[in-house]
Each structure stands twice: as structure tokens, then as C-alpha cells.
């Protein structure tokens, strides 16, 4: 089944107000920023956002007033520091109050993996003794075999996972490479998956390298061709990290008015991703493209 559609269609078809949405699952790379901007343009409300660290994307969606709750280990700007919209929401309820389900990176990975395997929880040795591990989504557990004390992490099952990948066919079978973070766990945990990708390839390309088909099409609801859709985060082989974009965002979002100007310039004031790239400018886009090639040798699946 051909699941190709526009970004606008993918967001309007798959995301409804009040849903839980996993994003930023590659950690600092493969963050589906273009899809996040479309969520903001479509004025989705009361979302629960699920992400290990998110590197400014959660901050943008929080600042735009789309989020009611965050399930995360870390909300900030990795290179520059604090997330100003997250702070305003948590400290002053601006633009609206925010609930947080606190995790560590490991526990959010386990929570998604539990859902991916159809389990209500997974046990772990991490995070014990921390103050956030006293929350309801963690429970002490005694191992029935060894009798050791463990922590049970409640499953997190997103309504939708939005994932950016290098290439996919029109059915949503996807090849991805580089660091994976919790991408595969999120794809299997979520009820629906929206893929944005750098390249649409023939099914034959997918079949040529099955070890790299980390997301299977039967998990995927929509496939969108969005080259540079992870900007400013990197996509290995396709886009470098646009460090200045993060530093500028940090400066401009320091106060609410500055953030609103930023939002108008980069999100609300542009129609779609193509217009966003135009605003970024040809020269900047060219500089962010990797130079040369570091190919791995092909492997043989000979019969």
C-alpha cells in the first residue's frame, strides 16, 4: 500500500488534539523538526510529548502552546543550555501549565521497549535512590528469582511516533543508520508511525539490505518525503548539525516576545517546509550538506 502523502496531510490525518506523540527518538540527531513545525501550524492542542532529550524541539512545541504534558528525561538545548519556554511553562504557566512525567534516558527507553514488547512494565537497576524515581510510574519490585530489589518502569505507549529516517519505500519500510537512540523501540511501541525521510526508494533497495530495515512498513501509517526534515539536527549522510540555529534560538527565545518573533519568522510565517528551506537560504543549506562520501563496502547475501 502506498502511504506517501504531504507533511500537512500526515499530521492532520494522524494527530488529534489530546494525543501522545513520541519524537526526537534519535536523541540529538534525526529529530523531525519539520513535522513539529507542522504540528504548530495546525494548532494541535493538549498533546503529551514523549522524548528522551529532544534538543529544543519540545521547547518549541511547548512555547507554541500545543503541549499539556511532557514525558521526558531532559528538556533543554544541548549546546546552549536551558530551554526557556519549558522554564516559563513550569515556573509561571506561560503559555500554559505543564505536567511532567520525569524519566532518565534509560527508563524512558525501557518504558518504550516495554510497550514495544506488549508488556506493562520492565524491571531495571537504574535510577534507584533518585528523588524522581519516587513517582507513580516507578514501583519497587522484588525479583521472583534472585530476590533482589529492582525498579519497575511503567510502559509508555505513544499514540503516534514521528520518526525521521534516511530512506524508505512508499509502504514505510525504512533504512536508517548512525546512532539510533530509542527510534526502533518507539516505532514498535506506538499505535501509529509517521515517517519523514530524506529519500524515497524502490522496495528493491530495501530488500537489498534487510539488516538495515529497522522499521517495517506494517508499523507505519504515513510516509512523507522531507529532505532536510531534521534541520537543524543532523541526519547522517544527508545533513550536518546547524549549530548556529540552536544558539540563535537560545538567544531569541530568552523572553516570550522574542520567542513569538522567532515562531513567526520560522514557523507561522512560512507555508511549508519548502518555504522554510527558502528562508534558510541556498547558501546555508549547501553548507550543511556533507562533503564527499564515506561509503561502507557492500555485503553479499549470495545464495
Amino acid at each position, binding site marked *: 500500500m502506498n502511504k506517501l502523502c504531504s507533511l500537512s496531510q500526515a499530521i492532520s490525518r494522524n494527530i488529534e488534539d489530546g494525543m501522545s506523540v513520541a519524537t526526537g527518538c534519535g536523541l540529538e540527531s534525526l529529530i523531525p523538526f519539520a513535522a513539529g513545525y507542522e504540528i504548530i501550524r495546525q494548532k494541535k492542542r493538549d498533546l503529551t510529548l514523549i522524548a528522551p532529550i529532544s534538543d529544543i524541539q519540545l521547547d518549541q512545541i511547548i512555547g507554541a502552546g500545543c503541549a499539556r504534558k511532557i514525558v521526558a528525561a*531532559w528538556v533543554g538545548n544541548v549546546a546552549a543550555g536551558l530551554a526557556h519556554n519549558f522554564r516559563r511553562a513550569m515556573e509561571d504557566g506561560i503559555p500554559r501549565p505543564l505536567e511532567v512525567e520525569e524519566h532518565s534516558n534509560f527508563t524512558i*527507553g525501557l518504558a518504550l521497549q516495554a510497550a514495544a514488547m506488549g508488556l506493562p512494565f520492565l524491571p531495571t*537497576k537504574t535510577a534507584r535512590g533518585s528523588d524522581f524515581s519516587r513517582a507513580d510510574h516507578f514501583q519497587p519490585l522484588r525479583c521472583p528469582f534472585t530476590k533482589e530489589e529492582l525498579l519497575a518502569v511503567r510502559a509508555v505507549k505513544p499514540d503516534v511516533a514521528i520518526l525521521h529516517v534516511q530512506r524508505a519505500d512508499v509502504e514505510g519500510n525504512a533504512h536508517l543508520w548512525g546512532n*539510533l537512540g530509542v527510534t526502533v523501540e518507539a516505532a514498535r511501541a506506538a499505535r501509529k508511525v509517521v515517517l519523514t525521510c530524506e529519500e524515497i526508494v524502490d522496495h528493491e533497495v530495501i530488500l537489498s539490505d534487510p539488516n538495515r530495515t529497522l522499521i517495517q512498513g506494517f508499523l507505519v501509517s504515513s510516509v512523507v518525503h522531507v529532505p532536510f526534515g531534521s534541520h537543524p539536527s543532523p541526519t547522517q549522510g544527508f545533513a550536518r*548539525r546547524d549549530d548556529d540555529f540552536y544558539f540563535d534560538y537560545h538567544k531569541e527565545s530568552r523572553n516570550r516576545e522574542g520567542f513569538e518573533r522567532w515562531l513567526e519568522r520560522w514557523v507561522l510565517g512560512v507555508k511549508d517546509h519548502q518555504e522554510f528551506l527558502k528562508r534558510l537560504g541556498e547558501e546555508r543549506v549547501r553548507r550543511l550538506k556533507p562533503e564527499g562520501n*564515506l561509503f561502507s563496502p557492500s555485503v553479499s547475501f549470495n545464495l
Partner: protein
Amino acid sequence: MVAAAAREIRDGERVFVGMRLPLLGFAVAKELHAPNAVGLFENGVIRDWPALQSIFTMSDPPNVARSLYCGGLLDVMGLMQSGRVELGFIGGAEVDRFGNLNTHWVEEKGKRVRLPGSGGAADIATLAGRCIIIMNHEKRRFVPRVHFVTSPGYGEGGNWRDQSGLTGGGPSRVITSMGIFTFDPATKEMLLSSYHPGVTVEQIQRETGWPLRLSDAVGETPAPTADEIAAVRKYDPKGVWTS
């Protein structure tokens, strides 16, 4: 601080690296005394040589290309939970005398300031064989009791970690902008073991929110050697992290 961090990495160790200063410390250690150290990153990257281009995050393409392994977060966290990671580096907004770290919220002028949260710090603090805390040394950061325990050190001291069932060894050193601390083997209180060249014990006391305890062998931190400085410059030529 980078040289001090590098000196903590022993040859052959598997190290949860983190970013900024520890990343540079890992590169310096690999270059000088720990050529067989392996670096693990929570995004799923494992490297047996440092990235040559400077990076702002562990997922930047130069840290991914020509790495030893690229997988997922649970792969590397699982290695750490099963006891295969000897050392990890962490930092925070606040630390107390038992090495507990806070990166959740602090109070400024009577108002709560929300910070980013744990990330992987609580995982490293609870699971790594031992961990090194890296901090800027300021009185507002060195507090008698942290407002919130994000990453547990020795809790309330003594055998708190054992009682709490933590499998990782806990903090072994605190490397600050002014000196280096170890921990009392029995009480698990922080002990000043060295002050950096040009810094006095009195100055460190002024920036520490509890009465300092000194290690018996307290002395000056050995200054970075010419080799260490050369290695730092090789991996941070523009002085992004060490200017």
C-alpha cells in the same frame, strides 16, 4: 580540569563519556596513557578513537562516522547495567558533601528555577563502576544539601548506597574549577585532596557551602604537562571548551 579528567581514565577501561570537558578528557587520555580505552555514548555510539573534528553533541556526524558501533540507547545502557562500564562522567547544577547531584530545579531569589532534568546522569550515577563529577566551583553550586536528588552519590553517607541497592560504585572524584576531591572511605564525605595551582584552601572554603574536610595528603594539583596541553590543543584547536 581536562587534564585531571583524562588522568582518571585507565587504559582499557570502558568509559561513559558525555560531552564537553569529559569528551576532551577522553581524547587526551586516548592520546597519552589510555590508548585502549573505549568510549560509550548514550545515543548508541561506541568509539575506540576520538572524533577528530570538534562537536557540540554526541550525535554530530563526526562522532558517528568511523565509530566502532552504532546502535540504540538500550544497548549501551544495558552494557552499563550489566557491569561492563568502569567509569562515567557527570555534572550538575548543585552537588552536596555526599556527592549527590541535582539537575532538576534550584531556588534563586526565593523562586524555583526549572532545569533540564536527568538525561542519562542518574543512570551513570547509579550503574557505572565509578563516576567522576565535574563542576564549576561556586558556593551556590556546592550546597550542604541538594534541593533535589537527580543523580545519587552517597545519599546520606556511610553505607547508604548498599542499603539502597545501588549496583554502581558511586562517585570516586569531584573535579572542580578550583581543586579535586575524593570521598572518605567510611563516612563517604567529600575530602579536598588537591587545589589547582594558584588556588588556596581558604578560597575553596569560601566557595563551598559546608566546612571543608581535607584529605591527609592534600597538596597542589600537578599542573598540566606539555604533552597534556598539546593533546588538548590537538582536539580543541579553537579553544571552544578550554579557552
